[in-house]
């Protein structure tokens, strides 16, 4: 122990005596360790940390057996049947997002909430911070459990439990406040109410229609029950329901997946790719520091020879050198942790907060332990090569009678090759990601988003349970808006790109045989001028008009891709499609027009076939209001106009999620942008570190060979000959590094496949361009030392010896 302390003291003194080396090494290590730690904090929060439920592995989402972008939705009928027939679940629940107008607490406010059926709180098992849950037996009573953030918003009063909140015009009693860690299903869910407690729920389509698939189902497995067993049972139940109720459950599929896996499955590959990328940055930084250590240890050759002559064993020399490099690495880790703290803030701003559990990202104890572990491994890694070399020294070779130049030069060469190879793999991945993002950016979303203001409406169910009330509201609001000089045109619909609420339904084309499994389609009820507001082109027939009322012919519009798919080579206008059976009869709708495709599910998902229904014939409470600004007016300035007209129609209706459509679409590109920016940033860092490493190695190599260069020039070598000699040595190593790196890049491209859009696996631009870029950078890094060598005065060099 005392010899270790001795080594630590000596290492600190050495670092103080060589501030340039120490600063360069600590900076490189801080960058590598900091970037790795910052990204690990994201991986830890999103992927590794168990959910804050008791026995989180027992909580499952019912639906597909693999993670999907959006969980499957089912009807309350299906939920009731599964609850009745299943024996393997301790508890089951169904839930759906809902917007509530909260009034009586200042200005009306739209609040995101969840309507639940069954044993919701028992399934997740998290106890409230204050108060209690409502049980399934209390489902008819107007009780609400609120989130911690809503509780804080309402004054963080201890006496809030037991008080009344007015939601959608209805009084609800606050039963409890959940802890901040409870974020089911999203971090922005503010309250939980029983579906059955909603006014009009008993007669709502959700309760009445067996095919109204709006609820996510979740459950807690009974003790000892495996996921495989649950999947088997659910599959069997789905089969039974499909047989018994073919009209509405004919295509029913129910599996199960761990709740955490469904939550994060979408981003798992991305985060692991980013972690791999940042590990490459760390390796390059380590190679740089190893270079520095090697060069420095050459200067200390005499010291180690003396130590061996004085009795130092190989192990003792190893201990001393590893102590020095671990200490250096720990200093780098201190800087790295500081960088990581700043880095996590930057990552959150770049879009990590939008990832599942992304808001929980922080540099906590586990992340600090990780940083410590990385520092120790890094310290051993960067110190090992020089340590092993120095420890093999004989006193004779160190005390002036020989040298280890050959092996030292080889080690430097291997490090350069490794740095170049790693940099090429990383920069290639960055190039592919950037190109993918660029392609995505070029995709036509099918709409013209410039100058469009959007917001979410939520009509209180207590006053808008009747379809005519909903129609009247929209009619009046849109009529008032159309008279405003700031507004060119406005509309309302159920869905908006890039990923608004989406409903799908199965359908049948007239004249086609009824199949066992009917196809499904995205359907969007919309007011007449909705598509015009988004400038979606009308390609055939007519758009919706005010005459498309409930008593008129049931009509629909179809998207171009729907027409091509289901009416290939034919005119879709005039054809009939059914999405509903009434009294065992198909209810047909006539296609009156074909419109352009819109990427409702986001640019990456492409154009999904879509059908539109006139709002008057299929009304719903709320939806998205879109308003196009008149010439000379800005979209964002329409917020005030819309609020004014909304207050005039109904002061109890709140506006939420106000935004411009451009910003919404840009946010939809958030994840691809995030991954492109991050990988691009890592790629640049890798390039810089590799360039610095190559420059350092070449400078050192040139300094070691200065006497040789002097002799060559004295014997007649010209400046160009020396330049060529030095550059060729450097570029030979770089060439080997590029070859190894290309092999590595080919091997890793498969990993990136799921994250790329519109980019070939072997994109020639990237796979040729990146090696060329690296070669140019390496040549530039090598040129300066080569130029120094070629410009030296041979007489001066030889005189110095």
């Amino acid at each position: 122990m005392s010899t270790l302390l001795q080594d630590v003291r000596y290492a600190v003194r050495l670092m103080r005596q060589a501030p340039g080396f120490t600063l360069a090494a600590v900076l490189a290590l801080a960058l590598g360790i900091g970037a790795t730690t910052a990204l690990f904090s994201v991986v830890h929060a999103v992927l590794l940390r168990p959910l804050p439920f008791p026995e989180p592995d027992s909580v499952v989402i019912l639906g597909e057996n693999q993670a999907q972008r959006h969980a499957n939705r089912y009807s309350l009928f299906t939920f009731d049947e599964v609850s009745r027939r299943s024996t393997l679940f301790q508890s089951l629940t169904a839930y759906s997002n809902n917007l509530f107008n909260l009034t009586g607490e200042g200005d009306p406010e739209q609040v995101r909430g969840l309507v639940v059926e069954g044993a919701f709180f028992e399934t997740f098992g998290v106890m409230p911070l204050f108060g209690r849950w409502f049980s399934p037996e209390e489902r008819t009573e107007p009780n609400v459990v609120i989130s911690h953030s809503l509780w804080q918003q309402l004054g963080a009063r201890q006496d809030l439990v037991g008080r009344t909140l007015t939601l959608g015009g209805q009084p609800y009693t606050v039963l409890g406040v959940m802890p901040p860690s409870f974020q089911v299903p999203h971090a922005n869910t503010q309250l939980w109410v029983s579906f059955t407690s909603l006014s009009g729920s008993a007669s709502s389509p959700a309760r009445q229609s067996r095919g109204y698939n709006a609820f996510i189902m979740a459950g807690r497995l009974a003790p000892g029950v495996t996921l495989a067993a649950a999947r088997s049972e659910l599959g069997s139940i789905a089969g039974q329901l499909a047989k018994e109720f073919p009209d509405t459950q004919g295509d029913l599929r129910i599996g199960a997946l761990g709740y955490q896996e469904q939550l994060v499955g979408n981003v798992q590959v991305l985060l692991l790719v980013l972690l791999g990328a940042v590990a490459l940055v760390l390796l390059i930084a380590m190679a740089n520091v190893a270079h520095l250590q090697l060069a420095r240890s050459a200067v200390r050759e005499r010291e180690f020879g003396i130590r061996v002559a004085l009795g130092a064993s190989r192990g003792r020399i190893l201990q001393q050198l590893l102590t020095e490099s671990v200490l250096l690495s720990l200093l780098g880790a201190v800087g790295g942790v500081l960088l990581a703290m700043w880095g996590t803030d930057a990552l959150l701003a770049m879009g990590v907060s939008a990832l599942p559990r992304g808001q929980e990202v922080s540099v906590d104890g586990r992340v600090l332990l990780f940083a410590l572990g990385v520092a120790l491994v890094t310290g051993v890694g960067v110190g090992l090569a020089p340590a092993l070399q120095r420890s093999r020294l004989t006193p004779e070779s160190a005390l002036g009678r020989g040298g280890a130049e050959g092996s030292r030069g080889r080690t430097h060469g291997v490090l350069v090759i490794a740095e170049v190879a790693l940099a090429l793999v990383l920069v290639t991945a960055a190039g592919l990601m950037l190109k993918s993002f660029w392609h995505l950016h070029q995709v036509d979303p099918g709409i013209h988003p410039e100058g469009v203001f959007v917001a979410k409406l939520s009509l209180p169910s207590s006053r808008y349970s009747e379809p005519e009330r909903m129609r009247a509201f929209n009619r009046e609001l849109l009529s008032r808006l159309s008279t405003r000089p700031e507004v060119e045109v406005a509309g309302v619909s159920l869905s908006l790109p890039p990923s608004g609420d989406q409903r799908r339904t199965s359908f049948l084309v007239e004249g086609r045989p009824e199949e066992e499994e009917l196809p499904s389609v995205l359907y969007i009820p919309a007011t007449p001028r909705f598509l015009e507001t988004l400038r979606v082109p009308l390609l055939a027939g007519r758009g919706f008009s005010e005459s498309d009322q409930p008593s008129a012919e049931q009509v629909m519009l179809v998207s171009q891709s729907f027409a091509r798919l289901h009416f290939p080579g034919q005119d879709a206008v005039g054809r009939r499609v059914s999405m509903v059976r009434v009294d065992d009869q198909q209810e047909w709708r006539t296609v009156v027009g074909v419109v352009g495709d819109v990427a409702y599910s986001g640019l990456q998902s492409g154009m999904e076939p879509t059908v539109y229904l006139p709002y008057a014939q299929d009304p719903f409470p709320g939806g998205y209001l879109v308003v196009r600004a008149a010439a000379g007016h800005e979209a964002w300035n329409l917020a005030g106009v819309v609020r004014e007209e909304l207050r005039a129609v109904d002061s109890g209706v709140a506006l939420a999620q106000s935004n411009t459509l451009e910003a919404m679409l840009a946010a939809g590109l958030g994840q691809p942008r995030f991954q492109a920016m991050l990988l691009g940033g890592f790629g640049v860092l890798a390039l810089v570190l590799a360039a610095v490493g190559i420059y350092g190695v070449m400078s050192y190599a040139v300094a070691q060979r200065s006497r040789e260069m002097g002799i060559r020039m004295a014997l007649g070598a010209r400046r160009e000959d020396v330049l060529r000699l030095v550059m060729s040595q450097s570029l030979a190593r770089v060439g080997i590094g590029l070859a190894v790196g290309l092999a590595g890049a080919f091997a890793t491209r498969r990993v990136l496949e799921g994250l790329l859009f519109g980019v070939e696996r072997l994109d020639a631009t990237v796979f040729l361009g990146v090696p060329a870029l690296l070669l140019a950078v390496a040549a530039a890094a090598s040129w300066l030392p080569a130029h120094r060598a070629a410009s030296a005065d041979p007489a001066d060099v030889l005189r110095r010896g």
Partner: protein
Amino acid sequence: MSQPLISLRNVEKSYPIAGGRTWVLRRIQLEVQAGEFVTLMGPSGAGKSTLLSILGMLDAEWTGEYLLDGRAVHGMKPKDRAELAKSTVGFVFQQYHLLDGLTVAENLEVPLSYRNLKRSEREALVADMLDRFQLVGKKDLYPNQLSGGQQQIVGIARALIASPKMLLADEPTGNLHSTQAKQIMEMFQALNRAGTTVVQVTHSEANAAYGHRVIQLADGWIQEPR
């Protein structure tokens, strides 16, 4: 006569060159008794420093037999040789070879830190050596703050701190002026009188006079005494 401390039989060293070998030492037969003060002399390239390196086990590339304190060095593994060297040999270099980054006291402590001693024991030995060589006032100075003579005194103190049975000195006064050289040689003589076996390499007849006998080398051979 008691067993010699050092006994060399047919010790040879050579390097391969194109077409043959070049010999540095040829059939060296040598015995040194404990407590002797022996001087190795000869022209440059005679093999004196090489012979000293072999005696100090700094050089392992040789053939023949070498018995040190009754133990067969020639049959030992490198680890065992290192242990024997640690317990038996102290080496004084011509260029002093102090560690520039360590103070005088720390330089003295270096050999002890490689010999399983507690910190308190090491500190005690260092303090004792500082006192013995009148280096107390200089204990916190760095080598570049000392004169050549002072540095060599530190080198000698370092060589003796682990109480070796023999002291090997390679041109110990080669870089010093005559006054300092005299001081160093008198120190060696005093050490020898106190029981330490001393083997030195020198070009100086004056330095050789401090010893008991002189062994002449030339072209790798030990010359018969005249």
